């Protein structure tokens, strides 16, 4: 119960923060007003609609092709309207396409693209990071241990986008093994191959961005797994397990890992925000048409509806991840009881 309340409180906090940033900072109103001067993108009806959507004006009357009259609202009016808009996922229209933000997000396949990339990278990074972390902890002080620690420290301190650029230079431009960007090849618009061909091509396009994001994420996971596993292996229950005659594998992966995974679950949730940040950058580097790339383009366009929506949705994802990890933690650790 307390957890749910906490989560609701967080969502309210995020919406409020979003509101403060976008509505009270100088620029938003001005830039919307400026759009009136740009009839190529906006006709006054649309501007009027937007102003009403964000509740800048109680009443908008269009007085000419580039001008309107506005009866301004109070902050509280705006906030309540904004709040309702956010929780009903009514984000307004994208400045780029004049279509609803939600449409641009889902129908264009961006959401699926991002989920694919994130899903693959997270799974691989968690698997590899945890596995290598366990082995490194088991062989503490060996060459394998110091090697994998050094490597993860390196990938940890290298900027994601730089790794992405390097991969493009090496694997796409020089070796021509993978495409340098995009989600699917352009010719699919004309002729789409059979399913197997589609799958293979998609994997080819996915490989470099997924590799980049995986490398971004696995290092921290490895280091943490190694630390918690080292701790767990030095606990008496690991010795009990060995003394029982359990094979080392069972001691490692059953007895020690279940204990060590507790901080890992928390960390995975906490680092989810960072992972999404990494996804934004990776998608940008590889022109991967997902939510992150969309957000990047929205920056260039000053597409505030999209930016707000993305910020809100990413924050929601992180909040959800934390909520889920709390529940997981409860399942993994019998010492925690929920009311």
């Amino acid at each position, binding site marked *: 119960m307390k957890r749910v309340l906490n989560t609701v*409180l*967080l969502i309210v*906090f*995020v919406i409020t*923060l979003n509101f403060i*940033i*976008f509505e009270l*900072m100088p*620029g*938003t109103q001005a830039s919307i007003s400026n759009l009136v001067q740009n009839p190529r993108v906006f006709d006054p009806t649309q501007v009027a609609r937007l102003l009403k959507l964000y509740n800048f004006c109680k009443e908008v009357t269009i007085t000419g092709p580039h001008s309107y009259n506005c009866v301004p609202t109070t902050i509280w009016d705006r906030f309540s309207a904004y709040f309702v808009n956010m929780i009903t996922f009514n984000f307004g229209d994208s400045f780029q396409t004049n279509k609803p933000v939600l449409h641009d997000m889902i129908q264009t396949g961006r959401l699926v693209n991002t989920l694919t990339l994130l899903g693959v990278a997270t799974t691989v990074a968690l698997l590899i990071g945890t596995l290598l972390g366990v082995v490194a902890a088991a062989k503490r002080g060996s060459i394998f241990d110091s090697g994998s620690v050094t490597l993860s*420290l*390196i990938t940890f*301190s*290298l*900027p*994601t*986008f*730089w790794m992405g*650029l*390097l991969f*493009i*230079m090496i694997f*796409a*431009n020089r070796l021509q093994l993978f495409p*340098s*960007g995009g989600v699917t090849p352009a010719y699919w618009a004309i002729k789409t191959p059979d399913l197997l061909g589609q799958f293979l091509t998609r994997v080819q396009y996915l490989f470099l961005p997924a590799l980049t994001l995986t490398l971004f994420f696995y290092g921290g996971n490895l280091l943490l797994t190694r630390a918690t596993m080292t701790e767990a292996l030095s606990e008496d229950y690991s010795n009990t397990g060995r003394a029982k005659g359990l094979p080392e594998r069972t001691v490692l992966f059953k007895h020690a890992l279940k204990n060590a995974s507790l901080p890992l679950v928390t960390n995975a949730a*906490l680092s989810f*925000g*960072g992972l*999404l*940040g990494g996804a*934004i*950058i990776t998608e*940008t*580097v*590889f*022109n991967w048409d997902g939510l992150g790339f969309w*957000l*990047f383009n929205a*920056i*260039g366009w*000053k597409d505030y509806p999209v*930016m*707000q929506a*993305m*910020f809100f949705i*990413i*924050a929601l*994802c*992180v*909040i959800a991840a*934390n909520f889920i990890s709390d529940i997981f933690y409860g399942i993994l650790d019998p010492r925690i009881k929920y009311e």
Partner: protein
Amino acid sequence: MSENTSVPYSLVRFKRFFFNLLRNKKSAAGLTLLSIFVFIAVAGPLLTPYTPLGSVVSAQLNPPSWIVYFTGPLGWSQNAEFTGIKASSITGATLTTTSIGGDSASFSAASGASGGTVEVQKFVTWTYPGPAKRFVTSLSITPGPTILGQTVIATVYLDRFVGGVRDARWNIFDKTIDSNSTFEVNLDSISGDLRVRLGLSTSNIDPAQLIFSRQADYAYALELTLPPSANIDFSLQNFKLQIRGSTWGWLGTDQAGHDILTQLIYGARLSLIVGLLATFIGVGLGLVVGLIAGYLGRIVDEVLMRFTDMMLVIPGLPLLIVLVNVLGPSLTNIILVLGFLGWMGFARVVRSQVLSLRERPFIEAAKASGAGTGYITLRHILPNVVSLTYVNLALSVPAAIVGEAALSFLGLGDQTSVTWGRMLELARESGGSATNLFWWWVIPPGIGIALVSLSFILIGFSLDELFNPRLRRRR
């Protein structure tokens, strides 16, 4: 940490601490690396004669000169400049030089009855096995007033000499002069005019590639053809021709021919400034919040920590993007935003340390002797969280540097300054597509970021070991 210490800053202690830090292999490596970067950052302008985005040093997108050690010298060239100014009469004219040297010459030319021609030349010996990539010329001619009423034809040539004999001549400019006002001849081989003039309009060969393609002697020549019986003064300034080769310096050039090494040096400065300032703000805020929450406790603690937790959950990069976008992408804003988003983790650490310190006997004793909250916090608690501060300072800088680089890379960097992140953004943007990435432009900033991060991480880890006896023993 012994319990009777309230003055951790004596010089002796600092010396011993520093000595310990140097004795540790990791931190010694980190400190060495960092001092190199600090030196580069501080001495920046002394290390390079150029400015990062102002000076065009060579042709665009030149790889570093040392590339020849890997590919062999074939096909590569470097910059060259014409030197050795010389004025002479060719036919039917007498030349009286008043001054000549460097890039300028003043002379008067007198022609005979059938007219005459004088010539001013500079020379270069093209020794590189590969062709040049581009050339740029400059020249300003100021005729004396005696020109009025007469016409002089000025022609600029590039001549090639093989074995002392001219075997080719390219006419790159001509103009009829009839007034005594100064006029400028600034040619760039990349310009369309020159290509058309040399019949290269349809090919993508630069005139420089055509002309400077053989190892030979070249002359850059201005010919002035005088009408009969004229006596005219000429003053030439800036008589220069720079040949830009296909390689440059240590790290090559960018899209506009700027020196990448210079950008890297200036970038070190900005990246360090951004990283350090943002970290100071973040750590300072975290310290204040943590101390207040930990020491005051109760409702203040509850409210502050609830807020901290909320801020921790908000995804960092999207918030960063949004804030910088709203505030405007200036360096100051980026530093402020990075700082204001980087305090939460540290606040938590400080708070828990303060909570444990509060129970210690020496705080109790201070309280019992009537010391006020502020006094206890400043005098007894603060010195005991200083070690945490050091560690956190060191470990937060890389995050701030990478954060700034990420922002710049997303196009939200300060457009007027060159940081490592912005170099990478430019490197990516210039190609238009990802297929045009140039290693000498992409790799150095990334290595810079990685090494600075590494140095701080090494120092941070060893500080942690030094301050945290549990870790020290486990080694």
